[in-house]
């Protein structure tokens, strides 16, 4: 594996399967009352969050702590960053503190790439602007595998604001690597102009795509898009691209419904869908910890085997 995880494209098929298999082992090993492994004892992981994201931060924090790493949470709010310190100076500060791994969430696409030039430790992208969120894609793939088995040939439909979605970008790349067939569904205003160059099908018609989907992944509609003229009204968006109980009934029996959270209930997903047995939304949160444990373990190269047997790197 590469030293950093910045894009889902950094992962070969073997890398991705290794992460997913490792996540599975780690999940089993921490199932019982003994949730903590000694694997990353003495290692320091910095959670560098320039955007508020409590969910992702605590997921990474839990993952690092279950591997016995020391965790430093560095939130841009109320720190020197809010006083105008540059990303580079923040990076040099972390470097001086001896961070073995830096988990970065940043509002600017590419910020993790820049950070990787300035620190020696491994950089894990926890979401950069409208670019990527590779650990989300890993936890999504992990969730699909647990529910549906091997992803080869599985049909995954991603619905919503593809243009601005880092979740969509990472999922398209990783799912393609894993052999799944991705269909993107969105109003044309929320698709990138060059989406035809992506390894995915595109449709504007959710109803037509649903019956042949094994997975439907609903993306959050950001509030700032609602007022920027990408679609006429929230009600119209919901009517055309939201997943309600009636639409859900078009799915095959085995099909699952995913959402990276946080949800807008009643906008892109109806409450009865979010709370249905098809929904994996709560599992995704739990699986997020396992997937991130696997990433941290593999990148930070624990001095001991993760769980009693050598995991190759």
């Amino acid at each position, binding site marked *: 594996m590469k030293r950093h995880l910045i894009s889902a494209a950094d992962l070969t098929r073997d890398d991705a399967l290794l992460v997913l298999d490792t996540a599975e082992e780690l999940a089993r090993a921490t199932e019982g009352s003994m949730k903590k492994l000694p694997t990353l004892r003495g290692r320091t992981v910095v959670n560098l969050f320039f955007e508020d994201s409590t969910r992702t931060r605590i997921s990474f924090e839990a993952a690092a702590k279950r591997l016995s790493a020391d965790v430093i949470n560095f939130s841009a709010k109320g720190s020197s960053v809010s006083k105008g310190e540059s990303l*580079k100076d923040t990076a040099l500060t972390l470097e001086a503190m001896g961070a073995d791994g830096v988990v970065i969430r940043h509002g600017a696409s590419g910020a993790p790439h820049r950070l990787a030039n300035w620190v020696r430790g491994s950089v894990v992208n926890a979401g950069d602007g409208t670019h990527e969120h590779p650990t989300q894609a890993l936890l999504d793939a992990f969730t699909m595998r647990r529910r549906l088995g091997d992803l080869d040939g599985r049909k995954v439909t991603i619905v919503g604001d593809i243009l601005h979605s880092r979740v969509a970008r990472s999922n398209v790349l990783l799912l393609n690597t894993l052999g799944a067939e991705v269909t993107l569904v969105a109003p044309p205003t929320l698709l990138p102009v060059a989406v035809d160059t992506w390894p995915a099908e595109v449709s504007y018609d959710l109803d037509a795509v649903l019956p042949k989907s094994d997975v439907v992944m609903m993306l959050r509609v950001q509030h700032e898009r609602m007022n920027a003229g990408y679609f006429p009204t929230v009600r119209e968006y919901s009517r055309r691209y939201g997943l309600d109980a009636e639409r859900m009934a078009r799915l095959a029996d085995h099909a699952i419904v995913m959402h990276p959270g946080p949800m807008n209930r009643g906008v892109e997903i109806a409450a009865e869908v979010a709370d249905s047995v098809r929904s994996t939304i709560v599992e995704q949160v739990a699986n997020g910890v396992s997937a991130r444990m696997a990433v941290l373990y593999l990148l930070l190269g624990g001095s001991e085997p993760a769980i009693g047997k050598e995991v190759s790197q």
Partner: protein
Amino acid sequence: MSTTYLIKGARVLGGDPADILVRDGVIAGIGPDLAADGAEVVEAGGLVALPGLVDLHTHLREPGREDAETVGSGTRAAAMGGYTAVHAMANTDPVADTAGVVEQVWRLGREAGYCDVQPVGAVTVGLKGERLAEIGAMADSAAAVRVFSDDGHCVSDAVVMRRALEYVKAFDGVVAQHAQEPRLTEGAQMNEGEMSAALGMRGWPAVAEEAIIARDVLLAQHVGSRLHVCHVSTAGSVEIIRWAKSKGCRVTAEVTPHHLLLNDGLAESYDPIYKVNPPLRTADDVTALRHALADGTIDIVATDHAPHPVEAKETEWAVAAMGMIGLETALSVVQEAMVETGLLDWAGVADRMSTAPARIGRLSGQGRPLEAGAPANITLYDPSPRRAVDPAAMASKSRNTPYAGMELPGRVVATFLRGRPTVLEGKLQ
């Protein structure tokens, strides 16, 4: 009394070797085997002699951002790049929108003495695009401004643009438009296309440039004025300009060296050294721009030399400043993109980088043919060496060159400004 120089064996416009005698600021003679008692001999065997280069688009940053560049450092960079005249863009602080500011810049250039500094006047007050600046006062000032531009901002209001085009007719001025439809480019970071989609960056669509150019050529045609299009960057813009010229529109256009050589694939590194406005486009656009420069659809090469301090580029892409320096690498890039590819000979380079820009800017003492009686503005260029670009060796105060470490051909050996060498043996004088 000024020194007399005898330039021996230079290939004038890449032709047969000849000697050039420079005396009292003018070319006293040109031909084989000239002799002159007491003249300082400049051995120029193998060197190409070009008329001193003229840049229609330079940011010297003074007044206001002397941390990035000054008239002194910028003109030294110009001389090192073979330039004898540069047009200093108006987006300084304060903006060059009054006779006072343009005269200040003009005077600073005269004092620095490395090349002629011809100020560009702002079209509108404060570059805000609302009210015309005192264009006439700038034209009548000591700086005798003929080129007006809100560069960095587009004169997007059609009525303001129309009035500006009409108004400059009174003194044979030209409006140089930065073509960028503002609403289509809000928050834009890079060319909109396959790369921006993959990188998750807000796109700067080609249509935002092309729509303004299309409107402006129609306006210029309607009111019979001269229009100059800054930094053309797309294949579509080339088609529109080609059409406009075929209809007799008095439009001229420039392309930057970086748009002739680099493409948007470089953004993949997220290194904002490649962030520039208009953005680097696709490889197909680069090809179209090269051919347009070769066939004359695009008239000139202009550097858009845009110095920025280190901290403005050592950041995330989204917050980094737009622009790259280019004066000291322009001729090498043009050789690489146009001469080595067989698209342009040295006479063509002289036209695109000296004669035509001087004509558009109405600089009577610049861009003249290398012949007896002409002002001795001469660039001696050695096209043979290839070497890696070293930002630390540059005369510009800034280091934001996208070519660092890239191997480029050629080297400016000497630059003469009205008979006085500003650069000799590759060194500033």
